[in-house]
């Protein structure tokens, strides 16, 4: 029986009159690759905020790696986030005045100790060893996103949380990123990807679909997963 890494129980999030999330129940096992899909306004972003320890639900509980985080204050959430969650953004969000390796080191710095060698290793893993001392402006979109992934992984998080990680990339770079995700999946990293791109959504063992703040579908894609991965992850690293 695989370990449950994340469990949402009766989670609701209410903004004024708007129910962004309504009574969500979801359980994710360690090592799973999950994609969350849904149209705009379906509650995807709220879901990420809550899973990514950037927001707390109005009601219900969120158990991350055995701890209930639903009632924690902002400072504790920050601590939990930097220990357990690796974030990847659609807009990459690299610090413009720091080099690739320094951007990775920033995450180490906030977590514990900056270690340049380790950061360089992480960059090598995403195929950017030779670009380590470039500034973000000198990197292509795909390269920037790979730096972002290296940064997300540097502190060995429990969950890699991607918010439209391929949204700003062309097809080739999308392939490269998916390929990196595949390798991480093989190493046992839990991956949660939020996307509205069906092709990207297909590349996951499990896909849940949100609509109006509710889970309307929960699809097991184990069978098609391998094939989708082969199609998408054709890029070479």
């Amino acid at each position: 029986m695989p370990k449950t890494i994340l469990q949402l129980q009766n989670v609701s999030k209410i903004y004024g009159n708007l129910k962004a999330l309504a009574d969500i129940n979801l359980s994710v096992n360690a090592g799973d690759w999950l994609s969350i899909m849904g149209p705009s306004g379906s509650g995807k972003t709220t879901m990420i905020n809550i899973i990514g320890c950037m927001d707390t639900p109005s009601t219900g509980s969120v158990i991350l790696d055995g701890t209930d985080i639903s009632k924690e204050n902002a400072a504790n959430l920050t601590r939990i986030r930097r220990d357990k969650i690796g974030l990847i953004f659609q807009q990459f969000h690299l610090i413009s005045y720091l080099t690739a390796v320094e951007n990775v080191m920033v995450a180490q710095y906030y977590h514990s100790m900056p270690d340049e060698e380790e950061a360089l290793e992480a960059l090598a893993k995403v195929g950017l060893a030779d670009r380590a001392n470039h500034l973000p402006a000198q990197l292509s979109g795909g390269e920037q996103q790979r730096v972002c992934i290296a940064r997300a992984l540097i502190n060995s998080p429990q969950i890699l949380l991607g918010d439209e990680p391929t949204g700003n990339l062309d097809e080739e770079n999308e392939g490269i990123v998916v390929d990196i995700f595949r390798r991480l999946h093989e190493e046992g990293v839990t991956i949660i990807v939020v996307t509205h791109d069906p092709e990207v959504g297909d590349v996951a063992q499990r896909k849940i679909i949100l609509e109006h703040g509710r889970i309307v579908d929960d699809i097991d894609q184990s069978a098609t997963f391998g094939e989708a991965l082969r199609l998408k992850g054709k890029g070479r690293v």
Partner: protein
Amino acid sequence: MANNTEKRNRHGSRRKMYIRMVAGSLIRRASRLIIAVLAIAIGATILSGLVTIYYDIPEQLGREFRSYGANLIVLPRGESKITRETLQKLRGLIGDEKIVGMAPYRYQTVKINEQPYIIAGTDLTEAEKNSPFWYVEGSWGNSADVSQVMTGHEIAQTLGLKLGDTFMVQGVKYGHHAEASRQDLSAEENQKRDSARQNFHRNFTVKGIVSTGGAEEGFIFADIDMLDELIGDTFRADVIECSIVADAEELSALSERIENEIPELMPRAVRRLTQSQDIVLGKLQALVLLVTVVVLIITMISVYTTMTAMIAERRREIALKKALGAENRLVMGELLGEGVMLGFIGGALGVFLGFEFALRVSLNVFGRGINFQPVLIPATIAIFIIITVTASIIPVRRVMDIHPAIVLKGE
């Protein structure tokens, strides 16, 4: 032991990363930071420049007020006169740096064309320093050519003298009394009597004609040593006119010291000048103070707004760092470091520009250099570090309350 070393290394490494981040931010964002540094430097220039001027104004303007002439008249006490030793003692007591001019005067009644006039013997160089308001047609006399003298405008008019004209002065030597022309003697005999041993006469050339609109127009001005020699006496001054850089209070303290240490002298401050100078200078100082304060407040606010505008563009970066797990205090620390560096660079640049500015102003307005207050260097830098840091932290505090989630989707 090993644990300690490791801990120290960890600290070193964290600090190194901190420096790397702050330096990276400062160096690689240089083009944008120029705006901030410029703003701070402008502010610091105005601050250090104006404060320097403000501090120096009393001294500088005080010297300008000396154009009103002597503000301390020193008379001998009783019937005695002032000797050269006493004059030197007085000069030593007041101190050279305070003295603009210090001229002894000796008045001697003489006859020109058998009419009585007064010749004032003085140190002409010092008298010139004392009396910048005199209008001298021709030029000032000096101790090098003692037969060239200056006459007051009134005398010149009465005697019909023009520049370069020569006239003869007659008189009785010191210690002798003039005898009235005796009716029973002929004019020739009278003249003979006058030129005897107890009398003197000498020809002078008019080198300058003095107009002041005051009593000075009725005197002849000549070198005091020449006058002493002419009347056969040693240096004895009737009065010393001093032009001293001091306000009423300093001047009365000085008068008291003179009375105590040189009892044979009786100093009198010229109230008309001292009181009036205090009033006008006080107003001017208040003016410059108020102007300085207004300018400073406005400048600091505008430096603050510029800094605030600069920091607003970093909202997203701060949110990102928070999303990566940065605690508020760490983010604050980084902004603080940047603020300190910016304040330091801009402040240091501004201090020197400000001094340069103050010097230029002083040279232009007063024709003199200016005294810099060294304490302004650290003070200005510190003030602008405080402004930049406050301007960085206060707007950021608001950002701190914003969810790190703003990084998720481009706002």
